């Protein structure tokens, strides 16, 4: 039996072509399979896992912040966030239209927001943050027609006194990319709220607490199949500040409408009782993510309301710096209690003429009178005789080339000129005229108000600078004291007691008969030094640095008013008011 094929040859030819076509198609399938499974396999594996593991985060409430009397300053309030879970939405356009009507957003805006997040359809997409009560109620009522919309309650930072102590307290915000990279996973994830400035940032680890949450396995309909992990959030710890709320309010009112700062602290503990900065801002604006327009307004304000002037800007200290010049001159034996210098109103150095602020001159003055009347000529003489090398020694003793140290982030350094510094910065030698300028706190010298404050603290305690701090206690959520911050000497300034005594007498004389007479108080013996610093920005800066009571000091104060005018006229009365308030509050 033979095969008898009647199939024409041309047909067989065509079948072979068909075979080739089939082979090509199958090769194409295999190549694609290879690409999907072998080359991109790993990537898809991750996506498959992401698909079915849903992390539900429960934010930990941040710790509260209290003032030294236990009055609450910062707390949390519940904020209702409206989100959409894309996977649970049947018709996005329809839903957006309905939701938009209630919350007052256009349909397109909502659709766009949802469509931007295509990575994980089960992750809620935030539509409206911190919505009002009546909206919440309306959404609850219309729940059936709003399938896919969820309301989440999230703790939101609440600064009860708005602008009060804003620069100390700081603010919080969503972690940004750089911070995320620096601080790293798995501790932080995008969207986490962290401290961005002030105490919120410095004590972030203590305030933040630990996020809780659960990981659940879900099926395609988003139903939870199993809980893989569950962790309760651990609330953050509370801070008790050294700040006194009433003093702080009083100080902020004193500086209202001005630019500047007030630092009031206990020199024997380092506790800061008030740290006033003006102008200020409302940290609540940042709590739920600051709006673009608010940010624009704050960051481009020519008055720099976000800057903590007491630690983040350095200024010429002017005559307030004469304290250091006096100490250096006394210690080096250039002058003593008795030496007198005659002030004619001018001072000649080679062919340069330097003037005293009092054109007619002070006449013959001792060091105590020179401090009291802030006589430039006396200090020019001291500066000239001291020379920069010896001057530098005393600036170093006060630690001025370093940061003072305070429990706030972003403290800046001032500028402490020296021969090396001038060589480095200007490629110039140090001229005798530079000594003259430095002796009255002008020229290249720039100090932060906090540095001036550390100088006055050292004078008050006669040589000990206690670490300045804003936090007194750390308290657990259950109310137990976890840590009590103890006074700690951060620097010892080795200066003889005699020198301090003479300078202190000078500071007291300043109030009683000198430039600081406006700080003279009937009830209180105040001592201090005024300063009126010339600067290229315009009106002089007004300074006052002092302590009280003179006989038995309890507090130190530094007042700085940027472009405020005369120290004696502007800063001294503020210092007096602040100090009187302190003793009034104390009673």
């Amino acid at each position, binding site marked *: 039996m033979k095969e008898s094929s009647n199939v024409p040859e041309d*047909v067989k030819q*065509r*079948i072979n072509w068909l075979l080739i076509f089939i082979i090509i198609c*199958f090769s194409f399938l*295999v190549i*694609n*399979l290879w690409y999907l*499974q*072998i080359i991109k396999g790993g990537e898809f*594996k991750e996506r498959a896992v992401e698909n079915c593991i849903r992390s539900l985060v429960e934010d930990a409430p941040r710790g509260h912040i209290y003032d030294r009397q236990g009055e609450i300053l910062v707390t949390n309030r519940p904020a209702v966030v409206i989100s959409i879970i894309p996977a649970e939405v049947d018709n996005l356009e329809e839903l957006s239209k309905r939701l938009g009507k209630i919350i007052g957003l256009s349909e397109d805006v909502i659709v766009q927001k949802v469509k931007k997040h295509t990575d994980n359809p089960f992750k809620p997409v935030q539509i409206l943050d911190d919505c009002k009560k009546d909206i919440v109620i309306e959404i609850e009522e219309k729940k059936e027609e709003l399938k896919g919309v969820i309301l989440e309650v999230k703790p939101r930072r609440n600064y009860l006194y708005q602008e009060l102590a804003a620069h100390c307290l700081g603010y919080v915000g969503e972690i940004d990319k750089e911070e995320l990279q620096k601080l790293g996973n798995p501790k932080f994830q995008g969207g986490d709220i962290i401290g961005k400035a002030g105490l919120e940032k410095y004590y972030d680890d203590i305030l933040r607490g630990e996020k809780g949450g659960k990981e659940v396995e879900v099926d395609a309909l988003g139903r939870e199949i199993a809980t893989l992990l569950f962790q309760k959030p651990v609330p953050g710890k509370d801070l008790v500040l050294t700040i006194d709320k009433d003093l702080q309010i009083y100080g902020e009112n004193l500086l209202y409408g001005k630019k500047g700062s007030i630092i009031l602290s206990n020199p024997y503990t380092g506790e800061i009782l008030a740290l006033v900065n003006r102008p200020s801002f409302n940290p609540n604006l940042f709590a739920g993510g600051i709006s673009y327009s608010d940010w624009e307004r704050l960051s481009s304000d020519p008055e720099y309301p976000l800057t903590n002037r007491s630690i983040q800007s350095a200024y010429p200290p002017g005559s307030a710096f004469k304290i250091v010049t006096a100490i250096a001159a006394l210690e080096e034996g250039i002058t003593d209690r008795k030496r007198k210098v005659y002030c004619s109103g001018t001072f000649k150095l080679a062919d340069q003429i330097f003037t005293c602020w009092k054109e007619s001159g002070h006449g013959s003055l001792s060091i105590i009178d020179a401090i009291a009347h802030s006589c430039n000529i006396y200090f020019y003489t001291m500066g000239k005789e001291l020379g920069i090398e010896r001057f530098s020694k005393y600036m170093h003793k006060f630690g001025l080339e370093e940061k003072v140290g305070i429990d706030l982030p972003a403290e800046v350094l001032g500028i402490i000129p020296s021969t090396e510094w001038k060589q480095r910065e200007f490629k110039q030698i140090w001229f005798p005229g530079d000594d003259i300028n430095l002796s009255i706190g002008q020229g290249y010298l720039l100090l932060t108000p906090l540095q001036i404050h550390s100088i006055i603290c050292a004078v008050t305690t006669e040589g000990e600078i206690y670490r300045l701090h804003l936090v007194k206690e750390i308290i657990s959520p259950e109310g137990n004291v976890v840590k009590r911050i103890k006074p700690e000497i951060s620097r010892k300034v080795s200066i003889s007691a005699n020198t301090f005594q003479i300078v202190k007498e000078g500071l007291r004389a300043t109030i009683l008969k000198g430039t600081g007479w406006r700080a003279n108080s009937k009830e209180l013996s105040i001592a201090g030094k005024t300063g009126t610093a010339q600067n290229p920005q315009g009106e002089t800066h007004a300074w006052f640095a002092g302590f009280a009571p003179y006989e038995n000091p309890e507090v130190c104060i530094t007042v700085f008013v940027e472009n405020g005018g005369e120290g004696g006229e502007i800063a001294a009365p503020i210092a007096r008011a602040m100090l009187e308030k302190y003793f009034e509050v104390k009673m």
Partner: protein
Amino acid sequence: MKEKLGKLTENLDYTLLLAVVFLCFYGILVLYSSTRISSSSIPADPFLYVKRQSLWIVWGFIFLIIIIFIDYHKLERYSQLIYFVAIILLVMVIISGRSTYGARRWLSIGPFDFQPSEFAKIALIIFLADFLSKNKLKLDNFFYFLLPFAYTGILIFLVFKQPDLGTSLVYLVILIMMLFVVGAKIKYLMTVFLIALSSVPVLWFCLKEYQKRRLILFLNPNLDPLGGGYNIIQSKIAIGSGSFLGKGLFNGLQSQLNFLPAQHTDFIFSVVGEELGFVGAILLLGLYVIVLWRGIKIALEARDLLGTLLATGAVSFLFFHIVVNIGMAMGILPATGLPLPFLSYGGSFMISNLVVIGILLNVELHKVRW
């Protein structure tokens, strides 16, 4: 009869038969994996789908055996009748069919539901094989060349009405491949192709909204990742995440958690890709290659043109379904809703697959006169 049975066992293409049996087992296994967990919250028999599918495989083999016993030359006499029956059934579907998902595709005869469009595929293969083998020489005439388009066009029109774009494409592909093999002028085929291409914009307006959407989403599934594009994206994730060895049977995250839609019907290949990996997918493709290769071999060695064309039609049918379905699961071809031969869940389709295999075996058996 005894002699006939002897010849039959002697000449049967066991390679083809064995490949098909393996495919059926493979299909049952994957089907079990993808349906054992109910997608609704009501607990159901995990073997429900497997039991039904097995029953249909049995019915399919019964049809296959019956077909083997009928010399395909006898089909000549009935080819026109079969064609008319197909038309009548398709018309009945449009008039009184049972509809699912907005399309009327089912016809109930007694207790059985079946899809006449599946029967029509076989009817078309038989009818065209008969017509073309008789009129091979006349096809040089362009008018005669267009005639089979008219015959097929009627079926396409009726299926398109259901609407079922995928199946109407199957008819067209069967026709073109058979015309190509029978020796139609390439010039004519190109002409038809160009006319079809130029009428695409016109056809676009005939498409239902959901068909247009499918085509758009094929071009860019990320346009609507949770709507129409969802299937394609989830399917790609499933296949891709299978990697080389797969996650193991019953261990697919995507398939076991029902992220894949229609994972027991149109998207069953995604389950293969995810759970059995590249190795499992290649094994499956290998089995298909054996089937198609035997089919081509049968077409080449057939006793006459009728046999060749029957085999060609059978191969075209299976080939188009395999490539389009797998291509769709991998996101390289648009979602047309064509099931995967021997694997996708569905009675009518399973039976028509096995009937087509029966036709191939039949042609092979009768390549010699006995």
